[in-house]
């Protein structure tokens, strides 16, 4: 059983949305603005019990696994969503709804970073992202259609810890000198050891299987100093998912990044060598704590030649990422032209040197 929450305007009754520009709730019908704290988290009138089991007779065994059915408070329409959906839009009346049950009790996020940038900024960022890239197929620039743009609060686990580690490196020093008859090269090899502690704060790990991990890590970092305590009001107007990857399942990824950080950070203290290569590393974590947070991400889906392209923008900082197809013919042509030009210049320089 779940409950859904709609943030209603106290003035006109319209569904209000979170406005990233003014960082307040705003009614799109009467333009009234409200502080987040002024809105009730929950009221008896806004809560409705949903019995998705009532549809059970129609579904076969296991068919409703991973699916939930909600009724829209405004129009009564049935909203079918998967069990991780925390906020969405009613497909019938367009009202923004929050599945309150997804964020209650133990599932309640500790923090949320509100959207700072709106849909328009995301669209402009996409345009800029594509236009600044080279060797993009011309038809991608003209035929590429923006299929969908959505602001999503993506669940993340944030890991804070003190890491204690050690690492071994193999280092090399090269010295050269010469006398009247010979040139000498002396290569000296060293075994380097470093141990120490490093503290890490709020390393994020994507807690949703729906979101590609590489896409989510590419829009990092987020500024957690601007995070606020979770309030469902921030979700109005956006999509939101609850986590479906647990903190325990996310820990190996956090550990992997911490381990590599130890190797890289300790390596910076190894100085005076010509080459340094890591051989091994060990790590222990102390005082480890984790938090549950929602991070704002704009997702933009485009379609070109029957292929889907997903772009993401950090809803707080505006960092925009997304792979763009490359025109291989154009790359080959440019490589040949540039190569021929450079070759001609080299040959010309050889002639000049010879003639001079």
């Amino acid at each position, binding site marked *: 059983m779940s409950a859904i929450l709609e943030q209603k305007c106290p003035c006109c009754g319209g569904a209000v949305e979170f406005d990233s520009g003014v960082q307040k709730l705003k009614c799109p019908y009467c333009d009234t603005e409200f502080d987040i704290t002024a809105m009730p988290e929950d009221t008896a009138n806004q809560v409705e019990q949903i019995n998705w089991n009532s549809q059970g007779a129609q579904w076969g065994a296991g068919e409703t696994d991973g699916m939930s059915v909600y009724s829209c408070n405004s129009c009564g329409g049935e909203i079918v969503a998967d069990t991780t959906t925390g906020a969405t839009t009613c497909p019938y009346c367009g009202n923004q709804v929050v599945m309150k049950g997804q964020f209650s009790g133990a599932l309640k996020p500790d923090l949320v970073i509100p959207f700072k940038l709106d849909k328009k900024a995301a669209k402009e960022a996409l345009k800029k992202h594509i236009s600044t890239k080279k*060797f993009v197929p011309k038809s991608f620039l003209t035929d590429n259609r923006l299929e969908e743009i959505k602001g999503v609060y993506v669940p993340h686990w944030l890991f804070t810890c003190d890491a204690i580690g050690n690492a071994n490196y193999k280092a090399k020093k090269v010295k050269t000198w010469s006398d009247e008859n010979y040139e000498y090269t002396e290569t000296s090899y060293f075994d380097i050891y470093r141990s120490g502690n490093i503290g890490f704060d709020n390393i994020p790990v994507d807690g949703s299987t729906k979101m590609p991990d590489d896409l989510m890590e590419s829009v990092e970092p987020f500024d957690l100093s601007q995070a606020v305590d979770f309030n469902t009001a921030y979700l109005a107007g956006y999509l939101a998912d609850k986590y479906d990857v647990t903190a325990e399942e996310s820990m190996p990824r956090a550990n992997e990044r911490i381990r590599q950080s130890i190797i890289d950070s300790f390596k910076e203290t190894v100085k005076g060598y010509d080459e340094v290569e890591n051989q091994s590393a060990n790590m222990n974590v102390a005082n480890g704590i984790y938090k549950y947070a929602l991070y704002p991400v704009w997702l933009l889906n485009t379609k070109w030649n029957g292929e889907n392209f997903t772009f993401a923008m950090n809803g707080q900082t505006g960092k925009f*990422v997304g*792979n763009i197809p490359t025109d291989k013919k154009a790359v080959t042509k440019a490589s040949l032209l*540039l190569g021929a030009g450079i070759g001609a210049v080299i040959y010309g320089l050889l002639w000049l040197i010879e003639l001079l």
Partner: protein
Amino acid sequence: MAKKFLAIIIAALICVSFVFSASAYTQQYVIDYADKLSSSEIEELDLFAEKLESAYGVTVLFCITEGTGDVTADEFSSETYGDYTDNENGIIIVHDDWNKSYSVFTSGNADEAFSDAAVDSMKDAYDLNESYYGGIYACYELAEEYLENGYSGGYIYDEEPLNNDTDTIGASEEKDGVSIIWLPVSLLIGLLVGFLIINGIASKNKSVKMQENATVYTRPGSMVITGSADNFLYNNVERREKPKQTENKNN
């Protein structure tokens, strides 16, 4: 990524160096039966002679020997010429270091370029130089001058007019400058560099990737190194002989 890039460049340079070495040193022009020259000197002189052959189509051989065995000096020079080249246009100067004598064999158009007076001047240049290497090098410089004069319709050493038809002197299309063999080498290098630059630009179209570490989330000032050791393991020394520039004839 940087390592991969470096590996590609090194591999390419090795390939190019193979092309260079293969193209630059394929035939022997200086024959040292008397063992008076180092291998690097011979290589350098060979490159000079190869340049002459490439530019003028005339092979210029130089041989140092200590005696000519059972054959006469003239037979020795003609046989040695035939042993080392198939070019019908060419000259070989044989210096018998033991008997302090010379024998010269010319073939084809080289007869016109190298008159008796020209050959004598080359012998003088060789004799006047202190080292074998320097002497042969001076000979090749004179040979280049005579061939150039002949090629451009000028006059050779003894002031007899040369045949102005370039075909009679050299088969090469180039008068001077860089051998045509450097053109594909330059293009190869250019294509490689062009490929790396363009692909570097194109790779920026991919901006989605996993983060390697979490250093951006390091707590400021939290890193403390508690243990540190730099232990020497071993070393090795490689010694390489420097290329020798000259060798004194009198030694």
